[in-house]
Each structure stands twice: as C-alpha cells, then as structure tokens.
C-alpha cells in the first residue's frame, strides 16, 4: 500500500531482537514486528455467516484461516481475533465494518495491546510445552489451530497457521517481556546450554 494513514507510532516492547538461525535441534524465538489486530465480538445468526477478507466467520471454534495477509482466529462461539499488515489497519477496519453491515457486532482495534512472538523449529512444541499444558501433537493441535490458553502465568493466544513447525504466540503487551523471557529459558532447556 502506498498511502500511509495516521497511526500512533509504536515502540516494540521487545525491540527487534533476533536469535541466531536454528542450528541442530534449534528453535528460534523471534518477536514479530508491528501488526494490525482486531478483536471482533458478534453473535452469528443460524445459516448465513458473513465473510471477512474471504474467510468464513462460522469456521469451527479454535481454528484459524488466512488469505496470506489477513488471518482470522475463532477463539470462542462469539469471539474472533483478526490480524493483518500494520499499514492496512484503517482499511481493514472499514472493510470489516462493511462486511458486517446488519450484524450487531463490536470490532475493536487491539493492535497496540498485543505483541506477537514467533516460535519456530523442529522442537518448537516442546519449547511451548515448557509453559503451556496444552497437547500440541499433530492430532490434538493440527495445522490451522488457534486457541487462547496459558503460557506460565500469562494468557496467550497460540496460533498454528501452517503445517510447518511455526507457532505464533500472541500476548498482551505488558506480559510480553515475561513471555519472551520464559520462551528463551525454555529454549535453553530443550537445546541444552552446549548450543549457546
């Protein structure tokens, strides 16, 4: 997108730290850049469910759909978390409001509330399981799963969009240093100190 609309400047709480590329059993824990995110609450009428960015709202609970840019995670019967490129935040909001015309809903921009952390690598699930009691095996948490859960003491949204061992951890901004620290500690536990 060429035009840039007015957005409050955002200092990322975790900076642009990056761990070195995965080596051996390597797991990389990388803070994601700024993104647009929306919290949508709506009660769906039976039958016709509107689509947002081509993604169905009535997908099963705890699944995520993506069109490459925008992702839509259904967290509960009436709750969705939507993510998209930072520059498109205002455009997306308008587009969603149009798509939801006639449906009573609440669409709130939570871009500044959430911080994303990408956990990738063959042992990514083991790293997450250091703080998250969820079963992350292929059958229990297949690609396309997304759910709100806990990581240690912090509430997170865990998203697995593709078959690759890449998990997105979305947490609240004030929890992000804790979550990031916990994940980095867990990498030590999985890889062992020799890898560093």
């Amino acid at each position, binding site marked *: 997108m060429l035009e840039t609309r007015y957005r409050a400047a955002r200092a990322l709480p975790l900076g642009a730290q990056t761990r070195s590329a995965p080596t051996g059993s390597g797991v990389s824990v990388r803070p994601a850049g700024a993104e647009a995110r929306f919290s949508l609450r709506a009660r769906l009428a039976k039958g016709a469910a509107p689509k947002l960015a081509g993604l169905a709202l009535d997908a099963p609970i*705890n699944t995520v759909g993506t069109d490459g840019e925008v992702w839509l995670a259904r967290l509960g019967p009436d709750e969705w978390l939507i993510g998209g490129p930072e520059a498109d935040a205002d455009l997306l909001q308008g587009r969603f409001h149009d798509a939801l015309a006639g449906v009573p809903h609440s669409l709130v921009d939570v871009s500044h509330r959430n911080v994303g952390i990408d956990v990738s690598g063959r042992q990514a699930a083991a790293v997450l399981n250091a703080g998250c009691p969820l079963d992350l095996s292929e059958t229990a948490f297949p690609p396309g799963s997304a759910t*709100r859960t806990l990581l240690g003491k912090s509430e997170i949204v865990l998203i697995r969009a593709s078959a690759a061992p890449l998990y997105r951890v979305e947490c609240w901004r004030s929890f992000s240093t804790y979550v990031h620290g916990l994940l980095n500690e867990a990498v030590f536990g999985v890889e062992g100190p020799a890898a560093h």
Partner: protein
Amino acid sequence: MLLIACPNCGKRPETEFRCGGQAHIARPADPMAVDDGGWSEHLFVRANPKGVHAERWCHIHGCGRWFNALRDTISDRFVETYPIGEQPKSGVKPGTILGPNSATQSETRA
C-alpha cells in the same frame, strides 16, 4: 493435570478454568413475594454435598464461556459437562456417591 471437557473446546487443562459455584440456582420468579429469610436462602445458602455436585465453570483462559458440570467432590472427577440452560444427560443425581471405577464423560470421550 486434570482435564476438563469444555462443551466448546473439548478436553483442556484445568488451569484454564474457573469455578463459579453451585449451578441451577434460579432467581425467584416473583421477588416481591419472597420474605427476608427466603432472600437470604437464595443469595447466600449453597449446597455442599459429599459426592456429585452440579457447578458452574468458566473456560476463562479459552473460549471464555460458562458451562455447567457435574463434579464428584470426593474424587474431583468430572462426571459430565453440559451447556448453560440445559440439564445433565448422564442421569447422575447431585449428591450421589460414585464407585471408584465408574467411567466419566471426559475419560470415555476419544
């Protein structure tokens, strides 16, 4: 870790849940007809059975929705979970004391 079967999300770890006390407490249909004693019963007096107990639970760190559950207060086993506004299907009455080997919903569910 104890797994609780949320009606929306399936079996999830217990730390994601909060208990909301006794279920199926209906507000009196005609409040003006209830005397002070009746109100205090309605507001404050709760059952505390040994055995199966009907409770409200909230999947607060998951789908965020409330549901009902039958839980055995002796063994902490969940006999059944069911949506708000419905009655239990398993036929186990609150106050029943279960045998040690009775299968429960969350254990028989695949």
